[in-house]
């Protein structure tokens, strides 16, 4: 499996995806400070984004939506394009188990998105925590308990992003369409992003993860039986 994952890395140029992660991280740093400043900009003291956790929630959800779209784009390139038309002939000409090749592709993209999401959010909030220590913007400050909750939320969102992307991939694969995959990722992200509660998000994550796991099994069967 490691060999097949290395081959995915060799076949595909991942530089644009790394640049996308950098771009998302930079944008999220900007959003973090913007949303932290919002209560101070408004005359009304009961502004919506009052606490550190509020800022983390809204920024991490934005980040999750961005990574979902990035993941859908990567899945489109690594899976939908590769199992379409003449590319499928090349891939199916190798004496390698088709299910293993698909598993390598899914593992590579999922690992890239998972690690990218965690690293990106860690950079964003570590920077924010650091500047809050010296020059606080949020009123109640950054408490260690809030940091623990934020870390848990980000972990839940990482799994949620993976699951949503796999569902989007499946629909894109069925329709042999990159736009379908990307639009599905956006559509699925929209309601989840509006939950506004870590608990609801955890429930959504569990439901999406189970769906994604089932769809991976179905997808693997389809690839194995595919004709080129």
């Amino acid at each position, binding site marked *: 499996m490691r060999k097949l994952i*290395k*081959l995915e890395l*060799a076949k595909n140029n991942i530089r644009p995806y790394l640049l996308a992660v950098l771009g998302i991280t930079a944008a999220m740093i900007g959003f973090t400070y913007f949303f932290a400043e919002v209560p101070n900009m408004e005359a009304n003291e009961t502004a919506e984004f009052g606490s550190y956790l509020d800022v983390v929630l809204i920024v991490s959800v934005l980040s999750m939506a961005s990574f979902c779209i990035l993941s859908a784009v990567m899945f489109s390139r690594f899976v939908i394009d590769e199992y379409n038309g003449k590319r499928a002939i*090349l891939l199916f000409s190798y004496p390698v188990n088709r299910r293993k090749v698909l598993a390598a592709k899914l593992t590579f993209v999922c690992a890239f998105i998972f690690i990218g999401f965690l690293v990106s959010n860690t950079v964003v909030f570590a920077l924010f925590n650091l500047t809050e220590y010296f020059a606080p913007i949020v009123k109640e400050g950054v408490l260690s308990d809030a940091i623990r909750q934020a870390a848990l939320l980000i972990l839940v969102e990482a799994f949620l992003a993976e699951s949503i992307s796999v569902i989007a991939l499946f629909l894109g694969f069925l329709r042999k369409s990159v736009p379908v995959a990307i639009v599905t990722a956006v559509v699925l992200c929209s309601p989840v992003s509006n939950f506004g509660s870590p608990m609801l998000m955890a429930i959504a994550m569990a439901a999406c993860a189970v769906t994604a796991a089932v769809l991976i099994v179905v997808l693997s069967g389809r690839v194995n039986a595919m004709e080129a």
Partner: protein
Amino acid sequence: MTSIIQADNLIKTFGNKEVIRNCSLSVKKGEIYGFLGANGAGKTTVLKLICGLLRPTAGTIEVAGIDAVQSREAVLAKIGSIIEVPVFYEHLSAAENLRIHLAYLGLAGKADIEDALERVGLPNTENQKVATFSLGMRQRLGIARAIIHRPEILLLDEPINGLDPAGIREVRELLRSLSRNDGVTIMISSHIISEIEHIADTVGIIANGTMMRETPVSALHAERPNGLEDYLIELMSGGKTYA
């Protein structure tokens, strides 16, 4: 000689359309088998059936004694192929494309990439990105990819497409050398009668998904000393079936 590819009563349907009908063929070990047919006759479909890219609706295929439907990967390990237009990883060089191919076959570092490129007339192109290759160069690179791992069987679907006359002659000589010197069995499809006549030991003529005739080229020449063209065109257009 024993058969290395044996297909019996193949049928393949797409939807309600039967594109291959009771097609049987037998390719002997070490020979060059010319698979002749008009465009749309079913040549590519049969080649895809042999290498497991398609599953037959009915019929059996054995490659080197292995059931091609049940043991797809075992069969693929014995085959080098060009099916339809070869595709590559465009942003990578010729050598990188061949390295990836070898890695998938579990032969990383065990083949001479430079030598393979030279054999197909692409010397000093190892580091050139495939995106900059012409149609003829891509076809040559496709052949290099098909032969680099020294397969027992080569399945070549219209391999001279896009090649100039000198290139066609070079490929013909390369295939002859692979067959005579290395014992590679070659099945080559084409709609160009003269090409098959020049290179093949045995010819199989397919029309409308049905094998019209399968015979040694030498026997055909003996039968028709005044030329084969008219006869082969008649068969390719679905004329009378000869046993």
